[in-house]
């Protein structure tokens, strides 16, 4: 110890101390901070890379080589991962036909591929991210509030019982029965096709969750009063009333009026 303290004013002491401090902090940092972030970052960039490959193969003919949009498809810069997840996972994209409305089809990508595509699109510009499961869990929504919000904001197009409905020129609002809560959430968040955008700043995540709870409830509950006739209101009810009801009355009248033998 004596010798060390004696040399503490040595010109090289400062340099040696600095060297020890730097290597120890650097070494400690390298040991304590595991390799995960570095790996995650590289897997994230790998996902973006893979997503870009998928994009070039399946999407770029309409959306442009850099997702800048063409006359056939809108730009995807800034639409966010949620839009990609909704459109691709519900099979609406890649579009198979050029129609008034791109229909829902069978999913053609695995969730891993969809995540890669979403990562690539999200890397192009800031947009809504794919929500985490607790965010759209219908069990934690407020049914009454959800019903209120649904009737104000959604029922005009999607029908009072979520049965869907017609829009103009062959477009339509989708029926909501059996739709995964995640996709209901993403649809509200991103406003696919004709649907308006209900961003988190206009409908909070809690309010969206309540709407999802209400939709899940009304589309899953049975019909307490008997056959719901598609729950589309006066059209189907009128048809049944006129054909079945009045038909039965005409039959009864014929029977009453026929001559007994």
């Amino acid at each position, binding site marked *: 110890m004596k010798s060390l303290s004696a040399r503490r004013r040595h010109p090289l002491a400062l340099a040696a101390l600095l060297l020890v401090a730097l290597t120890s902090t650097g070494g400690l940092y390298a040991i304590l901070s595991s390799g995960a972030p570095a790996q995650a970052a590289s897997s994230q960039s790998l996902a973006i890379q893979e997503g870009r490959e998928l994009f070039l193969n399946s999407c770029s003919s309409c959306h442009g080589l850099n997702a800048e949009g063409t006359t056939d498809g809108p730009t995807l810069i800034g639409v966010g991962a949620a839009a990609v997840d909704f459109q691709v996972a519900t099979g609406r994209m890649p579009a198979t036909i050029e129609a008034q409305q791109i229909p829902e089809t069978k999913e053609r990508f695995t969730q891993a591929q969809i995540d890669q595509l979403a990562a690539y699109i999200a890397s192009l510009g800031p947009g809504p991210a794919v929500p985490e499961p607790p965010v759209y869990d219908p069990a934690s929504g407020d049914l009454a509030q959800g019903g209120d919000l649904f009737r104000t904001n959604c029922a005009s197009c999607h029908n009072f019982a979520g049965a869907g409905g017609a829009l103009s020129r062959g477009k339509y609002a989708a029926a909501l029965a059996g739709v995964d809560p995640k996709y209901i959430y993403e649809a509200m968040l991103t406003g696919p096709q004709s649907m*308006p955008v209900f*961003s988190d700043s*206009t409908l909070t995540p809690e309010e969206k969750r309540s709407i999802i709870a209400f939709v899940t409830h009304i589309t899953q509950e049975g019909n307490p009063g008997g056959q719901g006739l598609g729950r589309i209101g006066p059209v189907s009810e009128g048809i049944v009333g006129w054909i079945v009801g009045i038909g039965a009355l005409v039959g009864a009248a014929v029977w009453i009026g026929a001559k*007994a033998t």
Partner: protein
Amino acid sequence: MSRYDTDGDGHGPDGANGSHGHAVEVSETPTGRHAARLTDDPFADPGRLPHEPRRTDVDAQARRRAERQVATMFGLSTLAAIGFVVAFVAIDKDAFVSLPLFGEIGAQNLAFGLFLGLSLLLIGTGVIHWSRKLMTSPEIVEERHSLRSPEPDRESAAAAVKEGAEESTLGRRPFLIGGSLVGALGAATVAPLITLRDLGPLPEKKLRHTAWAEQHQIVFEHSNLPIRAVDVPIGAMITAKPKDVEDLNELAKAVILILRLEPDQIQNARQLELGYEGIFAFSKICTHVGCPIGLYERETHHLLCPCHQSTFDVLNGARVIFGPAARSLPQLPINVDDAGFLVAEGDFDQPVGPSFWERG
């Protein structure tokens, strides 16, 4: 009288004389007048058909069977009515059953409908079956008679009126009693009309103005929170209302839809002027019959009324492009306050909602 002589005066039906072409044969009757005798008239009265007995009239076994059938229907109806009561007591009102074609339906309501319907239907079919098979079945002709009262009745009625008029002595001073009676009757009739005042008061200017005023804060319809302009994304549709207005009649007029569009797509200078950086506020009340409009196609920028499909083009001052509405949606002038929240810049420049008589 022939059986075609429906009006009973012995002349035959009017217009029968030769106007029916070959179907009518004019002949001299013993009375010396022309009478029509129809030969192959397609509408000829077939007369009374011969009475044909039913099987239950001639066959005692068939009759007993029909009696048993009717009694069975009434008996089953009683059982169904008891079933209704049992369903009320025994079936949980929240229970569901699953049926093919019907899906999940409420068990108790299903049982109610089945049992009560069956109970009523069986009473009906039993009664009809009874009358058709068992009750007597004579053929009956009901003759029409003249609407005019017989002459003696008419004369006695006229005499009674005349006698009453004489006994009243109204002829002496007609204006004192008669006039006052007419006045009293008139007053008693008109007086209740005052209750019609309860239909009012007249709307006066209420149809022309809403709760919106200069600097009135715009809030979300569902949360009563103010709306920050930067929080409204392109493509958004927000139902909004004036802050601190509780009266439902006022809210019903003042409710608005907030949309954000690309400002360079707007084709209407006035619309741009009333909006704020692509945010526009339109009345949510359809100008047709006042339904709340809420069907917004983000891509075509059409706003539709779900009641009758009136379509408004929000790129062009919410002009009507389809449907029964006759007027554009009124647009609320908006701006932002110092904190960046949306506020109204005044009231609508025209009455909102459906047209009314004095609207002009």
